[in-house]
């Protein structure tokens, strides 16, 4: 396994866990896990309570942990979604109605952080962490061929075709970038260390990666045409069906979600 950065989800490691398939959640139908993802997204969209957001996050984190997936890696991978959420919420959280906690005055602008602003920050943060954790759980407990077959059956053409063909291509391009970074490191370079003083060289190397990727895509396309590819790739994998117990679990989860969102009054 190798990685570009500890903070970027490692595609190789994700695929390793999904292909290993030893977790008990790997035996659950991919359709069930996909439908649960939809339910989680709906829950996140409708929920306004921090307590529910935290509970959801803890449940999802427990699922992730019970699957034997690497928690330490997950904490590293949170860096990117945290940056994304904070970059938005750090703008939105100011001047919310509520009890002021902290004020900041600069010429022409007065910024006040209220309890509701802080609540908004925490709620969105936990919602995003829950969705990221569940997405990684889904990816790391579902074999790629099931995943691609689901995309093929659910999404219309050409979206499914773009996904089916681009996945392997992304894999190969990442490998190419990894090799390049290894070559740089072997001669004393590194992404952050060298960017400042060798930015021109990096620009050239990344341009070369794009050109090589294009060249490789051309060769892959040629190899596909040689086997009669006419623009339509069929994902033929049989996806395991949803079991009775899984239907029951989904029904219970949906009922609970509806009950918690509409019928339970929580302090915040």
């Amino acid at each position, binding site marked *: 396994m190798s990685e570009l950065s500890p903070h970027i989800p490692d595609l190789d490691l994700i*695929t390793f866990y999904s*292909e290993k398939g030893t977790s008990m959640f790997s035996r659950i139908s991919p359709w069930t896990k996909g439908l649960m993802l939809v339910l989680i997204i709906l829950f996140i969209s409708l929920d306004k309570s921090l307590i529910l957001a935290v509970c959801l996050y803890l449940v999802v984190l427990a699922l992730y942990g019970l699957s034997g997936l690497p928690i330490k890696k997950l904490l590293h991978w949170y860096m990117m979604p945290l940056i994304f959420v904070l970059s938005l919420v750090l703008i939105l959280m100011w001047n919310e109605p509520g009890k002021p906690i902290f004020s900041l005055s600069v010429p022409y602008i007065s910024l006040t952080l209220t309890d509701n602003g802080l609540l908004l920050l925490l709620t969105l943060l936990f919602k995003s962490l829950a969705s990221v954790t569940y997405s990684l759980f889904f990816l790391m407990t579902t*074999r*790629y*061929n099931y*995943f*691609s077959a689901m995309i093929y059956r659910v999404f219309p053409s050409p979206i499914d075709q773009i996904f089916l*063909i681009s*996945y*392997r*291509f992304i*894999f*190969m391009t990442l490998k190419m970038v990894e090799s390049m970074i290894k070559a740089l490191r072997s001669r004393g370079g590194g992404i952050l260390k060298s960017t400042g003083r060798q930015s021109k060289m990096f620009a050239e190397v990344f341009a070369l990666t794009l050109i090589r990727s294009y060249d*490789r895509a051309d*060769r*892959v396309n*040629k*190899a*596909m*045409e*040689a*086997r*009669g*590819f*006419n623009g339509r*790739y*069929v*994902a*033929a*994998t049989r996806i395991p069906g949803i079991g009775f117990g899984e239907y029951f679990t989904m029904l219970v989860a949906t009922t609970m979600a509806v009950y918690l969102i509409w019928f339970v009054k929580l302090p915040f």
Partner: protein
Amino acid sequence: MADANELIHVDCASHIYPDGSLGIHGMCFRVLEKEIVALCGPNGSGKSTLIEHLNGLLRPSSGKITVMGKNLDLSHIDIWRDVGVVFQKSDDQLFAPTVLDDVMFGPINKGLTIEQARTEAINALKAVGAENLSDKMPSYLSGGQKRLVCIAGVLAMKPRVIAMDEPTSDLDPLHAEMVENIILNLKNSHGISVVIATHDLDMAARISDRICIVKNGSIIAEGKPSSIFYNKDLIETSGLRQPNVVQIYEGITKNLGISMENYPITADELIKTIATMIRQN
């Protein structure tokens, strides 16, 4: 005039790439039924360009190519059904999420149902000894395993001819030997003609029925392996080196000052020849 058992006929074909470089030039070549023909030449001699013409991936700028009696022009764009290509770099060929999906790709394009394609794919994987890889992701296979899967991907389409570009390059000796045996098996058990482009003359000597020496986009000599590989001037002016067996045999006869009575081209033939020489002396 085409022979009755001629599957492919390339008649003075030339190909010029868009950048002006010459791929093949006045190329005349043919593939007969149930034969293994090796295209031997240095890098850039036009072997790969010729292979891409055989499958219809490239069209000749001039000249004519006939495959199974059909003139390879725009009206015959489905020539891939009869002529399969195994590419030099396996990663270019394998793109599906699992080995089985990848091997099923060709049969599905041929119009087979999913179930039929699955059966063909499993049979093809068995034929190359890779049935245990069917559920694996191509990314996690070794170079040798990838090559076997690539061959299965083409074999599953049941073509009449399979063209292989450097089939044993980058392989360890064990996998190279496996690929050689598969090539022989394709001819002997499946009745498939095989065209191999290679600069590994030892391998070509071991398995080929006919050798074509390619230089500057044309075939400059062709014949049986023994007649071609013992022509030192021809091989060296073509930018190649004689097979090891030939070099050893020529060295021995030269050192002992005896004339060559037969022309071994494989290690087994060389051993028998040397054993006979020792017994006679």
